[in-house]
């Protein structure tokens, strides 16, 4: 007789570790164009398949197919391609400048550019974005000058954060982009609160928030879902499932037994699983979710199936925990290449135009960097006034901070005097 099965601690294993052959058989995909596109006001219970299958528009032949095709004009697609490419080139350059010791830290979004770019494009400027640290593409779409982003990375005298935040923790009030936090997941329920306020005020805008699949294990995810459901808040909640959270794969966030999108229906919120590397599909589901939110049908949870092609950050070395060639074999391809091929297939793009665009953008990045470094770098040029350290803790500076500011001034003056004495 076979021994009675027993409980044992299950430990999720990624399909492959360094040295193992890459295996993405666990990633369930659906053929492009196959998923129906329900009405935005359809009852949640009827939307279940969206959470388990994969919404895809771009087929292997690079054509857009099916009900989810957003039918975008070629010029819109070209803009999308430009933003994605700019994001990528910006990332590459900033990565290099970090390696050169010019900025202290950086995080790339390589391979995930479609998520930020397509989503930001599908939304209205008045919609409020609550990004994670890997959504720089939204800044490209909303048109923040690269110089401004670079000055933040440099913590220089034009740093929007006045030197207070790690690189990449941007914010942009006028662009309706909320301040990024180093604490994972905290902004997911804040976005819901923002959306609740929009609904209370009768505003027509929606909130849109991003979280990594790893971070979705935090309690904040649950708080966001509960509040979104209870108040039917006009919010789009995105889980960016890029398969990895530093060294742990998505199985450690609960992705082995169910999709992340599937959590939605559990709360009575539609969940959509989308090919995150398919610009058109991401655009389409975002449009659909925004329309739902804007017309009173409430929140949507979107899982973007994508892959973190880059290291987690400049402090990370992924070759320690995953095969080097995983990204090459990632079944959903590269978002930039896929949109490019689509445009080429449409006869609206070419290798030449692509190369020219890349060159133009490279130059833009280079020029912007030159401009940004004028305002100072980590090691050279003008520096932020340390007095700034004491500002904005409160709206008005309380006496104890004034006192500490004076103390620091004295300290720095003494140091300067000493250096002067040494030199003199």
């Amino acid at each position, binding site marked *: 007789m076979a021994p009675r099965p027993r409980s044992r601690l299950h430990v999720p294993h990624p399909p492959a570790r360094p040295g193992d052959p890459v295996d993405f058989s666990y990633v369930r995909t659906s053929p492009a164009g196959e998923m129906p596109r329900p009405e935005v006001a359809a009852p949640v219970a009827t939307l279940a398949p969206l959470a388990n299958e994969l919404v895809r528009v771009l087929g292997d032949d690079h054509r857009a197919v099916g009900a989810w095709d957003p039918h975008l004009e070629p010029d819109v697609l070209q803009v999308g391609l430009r933003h994605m490419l700019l994001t990528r080139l910006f990332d590459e350059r900033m990565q290099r400048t970090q390696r050169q010791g010019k900025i202290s830290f950086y995080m790339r979004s390589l391979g995930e550019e479609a998520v930020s770019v397509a989503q930001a494009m599908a939304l209205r400027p008045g919609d*409020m974005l609550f990004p994670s640290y890997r959504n720089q593409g939204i800044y490209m779409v909303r048109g923040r000058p690269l110089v401004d982003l670079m000055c933040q990375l440099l913590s220089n005298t034009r740093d*929007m*954060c*006045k030197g*207070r*935040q790690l690189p990449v*923790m941007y*914010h*942009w*009030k006028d662009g309706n982009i*909320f*301040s990024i*936090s180093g*604490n994972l997941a*905290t*902004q*997911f*329920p*804040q*976005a*819901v*609160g*923002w*959306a*609740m*306020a*929009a609904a*209370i*005020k009768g*505003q027509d805008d929606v*909130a849109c928030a991003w979280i990594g699949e790893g971070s979705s294990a935090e*309690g*904040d995810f*649950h*708080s*966001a879902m*509960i*509040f979104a459901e*209870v108040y039917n808040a006009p919010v789009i909640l995105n889980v960016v499932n890029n398969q990895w959270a530093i060294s742990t794969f998505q199985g450690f966030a609960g992705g082995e037994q169910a999709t992340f999108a599937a959590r939605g229906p559990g709360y009575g919120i539609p969940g959509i699983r989308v090919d995150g590397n398919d610009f058109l599909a991401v655009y389409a589901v975002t449009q659909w979710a925004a329309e739902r939110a804007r017309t009173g049908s409430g929140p949507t949870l979107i899982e973007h199936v994508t892959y973190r092609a880059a290291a987690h950050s400049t402090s990370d070395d992924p070759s320690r925990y995953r095969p080097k060639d995983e990204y090459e074999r990632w079944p959903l391809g590269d978002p930039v290449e896929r949109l490019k091929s689509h445009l080429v297939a449409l006869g609206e793009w070419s290798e030449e135009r692509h190369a020219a665009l890349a060159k133009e953008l490279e130059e833009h990045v280079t020029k912007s960097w030159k401009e940004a470094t004028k305002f100072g770098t980590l090691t050279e040029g003008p520096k932020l006034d340390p007095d700034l350290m004491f*500002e*904005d*803790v*409160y*709206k008005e500076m*309380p*006496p*104890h901070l004034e006192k500490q500011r004076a103390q620091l001034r004295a300290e720095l003056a003494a140091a300067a005097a000493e250096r002067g004495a040494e030199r003199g």
Partner: protein
Amino acid sequence: MPKMNMIQALNSAMDIMLGRDPSVVVMGEDVGYFGGVFRTTDGLQRKYGEQRVLDTPISEQGIVAAAIGMGVNGLRPVAEIQFADYIYPGYDQIVSELARIRYRSASEFHAPVTIRTPCGGGIRGGQTHSQSPEAIFAHVSGVKTVMPSNPYDAKGMLIAAIEDDDPVIFFEPKRVYNGPFDGNPDQPAVPWSAHPKGEVPEGYYTVPLGKAEIVRPGSACTIVAYGTMVYVAEAAARAQGVDAEIVDLRTIAPLDVDTLFTSVKKTGRCLIVHEATRFGGFGGELSATIQEECFWNLEAPIARVAGWDTPYPHAFEWEYFPGQRRVGAALKALMEAA
């Protein structure tokens, strides 16, 4: 002047602010239809509607986070945490987010959230309905932390807190909701109507945050207290016949050091009293700060009376509570030291 207890005064503050400012919203567990487990929000939902006075899910993390999002979108949320003992699930949102948004965004964003929460013991609430966690907020730059001790201050400070563009953690010492309490549970309860601080204007007024109040002038020593302990300290000073100057701190952070320093420099002796556990409590900060500035004026070591360093035990409420006897003994020792 109308008489109000502290609940009524707090209710009146929210009523007035909901009426004056359409961006004010009140939210929390059971605060809407029911009017709050202490009835502090009674009638507000009926008057201002469900879009302004919201019941919420039981998630302190969600409450704080939603309030932050609302604040960022131009509202002024007044969020209730049903008991201060239940604020911890929201602690991350308070420390990492609410307190930091203005700083990290260089004032582009801020969230003017007020978090009201009943604190303190003396109501047979056991360890999870009696805590005084003010110290763990005092230590957090970016939030203001206050604790009024009477109806007049409660109303004026709550209005000030709601109007404040910085986040405020607003502790309500629930033992004095209905009347001042001198630490003796066997004495008949005194209602606020019998106390001058129970006289509360109907209309709008503010009591500024960041200002302590000398509730009893004196010359022999200074007693620094807040919340319920103000009354215990008064009673103990009376019982000991000590001409103590009693400072009701009212705001814990930012601290009104001027009032403290002036008083201690005058009296030369100082006793600090709080309900929270002693070790690592806010009394340490008070003692250290006062000592730094007033050392040369001190005629005796600064003393502290506080809750014992144990969880708040249900059956030993009065053995635990820093009551008149304990405060009195400390006062006596303080006066005898030299």
